[in-house]
């Protein structure tokens, strides 16, 4: 019951994101008011750069973003969790993984996204997802690696090694379950970061193309008019934030509770 309650906001935002296009009061690409008109009758959130209904576009703009970013976030988190812990367990492998990751951290995101998406002509969403994963992975690996290092040195991992466990089992059974909090946060943050990359791609004219409504794209397109109609920027931004928040809560609620809790209040 309490679980259901905590999941409610996440469910709600997911429903809005997925079914939003059906709820939109007016078509997403037809101008209905002056550009950047302030909220008024018929346009509760005002109008965007072309005078289109911000509410309609907000309702319509979550689906693609939600799905793309979710896929990216999950891929990055899972891959980083596996690679990062493996790296922590096997110093030799770890050095290679970390050095590769380091190189990629140094590469500015803009350049990385450009490279992947432009060299993969016609890759579309897949190319974007690939780029986002490539950009996000090194960061995530570093965090996981750092978090896993103390556990890799713990007595129970040693015992498992002595018991004959191989790397995959060590990763999967011994280390990962102990990184629950860090991994869940990572998932949420990777989601946010994925949104970021999608926005960056939009910045490079590589992401969703107009007139598609997309929260990330809206934030960017309407930025010049933020002083005229702040809602056109703030609402999609908040939608992204709330979405990230609910992804996070959902992950926390749904993931199995295990392990000892914080034993005593500090």
């Amino acid at each position: 019951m309490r679980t259901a309650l905590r999941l409610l906001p996440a469910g709600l935002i997911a429903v809005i994101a997925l079914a939003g296009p059906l709820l939109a009061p007016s078509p997403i690409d037809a101008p209905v008011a002056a550009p950047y008109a302030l909220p008024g009758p018929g346009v509760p959130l005002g109008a965007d750069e072309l005078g289109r209904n911000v509410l309609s576009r907000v309702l319509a703009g979550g689906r693609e973003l939600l799905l793309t970013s979710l896929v990216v976030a999950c891929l990055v988190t899972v891959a980083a969790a596996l690679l990062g812990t493996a790296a922590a367990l096997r110093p030799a492998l770890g050095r290679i993984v970390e050095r590769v990751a380091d190189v990629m951290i140094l590469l500015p995101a803009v350049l990385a996204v450009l490279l992947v998406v432009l060299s993969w002509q016609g890759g579309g969403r897949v190319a974007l997802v690939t780029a986002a994963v490539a950009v996000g992975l090194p960061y995530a690996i570093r965090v996981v690696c750092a978090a896993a290092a103390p556990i890799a040195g713990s007595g129970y991992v040693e015992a498992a090694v002595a018991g004959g466990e191989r790397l995959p089992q060590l990763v999967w059974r011994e280390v990962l379950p102990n990184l629950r909090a860090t991994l869940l946060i990572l998932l949420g943050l990777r989601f946010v970061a994925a949104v970021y990359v999608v926005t960056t791609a939009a910045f490079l004219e590589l992401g969703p193309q107009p007139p598609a409504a997309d929260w990330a794209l809206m934030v960017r397109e309407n930025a010049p008019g933020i002083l005229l109609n702040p809602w056109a920027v703030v609402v999609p931004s908040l939608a992204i934030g709330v979405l990230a928040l609910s992804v996070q809560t959902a992950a926390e609620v749904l993931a199995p509770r295990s392990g000892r809790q914080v034993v005593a209040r500090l």
Partner: protein
Amino acid sequence: GSGPRRAAAGDGPATGPPRRGGTLRVGAVGKASAVNRDPHGVQVNDSDYLILALAHDPLTVPGHRPNVVPRLAARWESDDLRRWRFTLAEGATFHDGTPVTGADVAWSLRRLRATPAGATRLPGIDAGGIKADGRNAVILTSDYPNSEVPLLARLTTFTLKEDTTDVTRAPGTGPFRLESFRDGNARLVRNDAWYGGEPPLDAIEVRMFESPQAMTSALLTGQIDLASNVGPVAARTAEGRDGVQVIRRPHDMAMPIVMRTADGPFADERVRLALRLAVDREAMVRQVLSGYGTVANDVLGTADPAYATGLTQRARDLARAGRLLDEAGFDRRGTYELFTTEDVPGLAESATLFATQMRDAGVNVKVVKQESAVFWDRTWLKAPLYTTYWGTNDSVVFFAGKTMQSGTAHNEAAWKDEEFDRAYRKAVGATRGTGRATALRELQRVEYESSGYLLWGMADGIDLAAAGVGGLPKLPGYGRVQLERSWLSA
């Protein structure tokens, strides 16, 4: 529609006689990575051009009517439209006091001609065709009769001393003298000895801004006095604020849609006409430009005194557009990509709205936004449907020669039309008079009927200024840099 209200009533331009003195802080857009201080180089940055234009003089400058007025060249004449003689202004000197000679001008023009884009800047004029004529004149010889040579001498015909090596520190001839320069920001002080008469301002400080938004914020918080070319969104933001004037310079920018005529889905003249009839020009101006613009009629060069006002203004006629498409056998099931880029504000938006409007005519247009470098490399001059823009509103003939006559390298729509070419040749080859007027009318009629351009409107140039600034330029395009008569009230 909801047209823009006029500039805030209480804060009109400063009135009264020009006052001498004061330092004007001007903002201009520019990228730190693209700063270029060579007067004959490629000026991507507004800020660089502004600085150069204040410190150096071109031979001629844009005007209202006529659209070419004297500057360093006091007058010009030609008998055959091939051999043009430009006489320099009386008393023109460099900032170091030495007089400007015909040799200096000729050397500078040859230097300009030798740059990679020289051939398009001075079309038809070879280095050999540039000669000093006495102490204070220069002669330009064109390969063909060209009445537009004075017009070509606008903008970048900056004069340096003969055999200058360090162009960034070379003295100019302009109304202001460069005092300091750093990273695109400059301070210029009055040139008391300027041949055009002493400018009222003591000094001008040019500040480079990465984006129009930053520039607008700076103006609104009083960090600068003049923000040049900020765009309609900034204008609306500034409207109604105390102490800010909004200056509109009509016919500043053309953002036509190019339909490829040589081949592809738009090769049929009827299809092109259909699209021109399907677009809702009023809505485009209202939504894309926030009303800061005027409806146009598919002919480029709207600010030209010779612009054909006689042609009927096209308006939306979906029924006729549909009929035309049917006649042409246009495939309405196909999806047509409209390429665009975000180089200038409003360009991508115009494409988006255009695509929406085309749906009403049953044409599926899909907007593809491209990064600037990709756009210019892959799309421009090649794609069947794309947006383009021309920032300086030059003359009808200029556009015809540069982008439409069959021989030009920059024929954006790959348009070839015998009739048009003939009219063009007649127009450039004709001296002022009725022959030229008829040719120009003919040229614009053909362009109106069958060129590859869909010009739905013209964007206003918009500057913001603090209330106390007077004498600001009103001309479109690069006319905005003429700050030598501006002044500050106390």
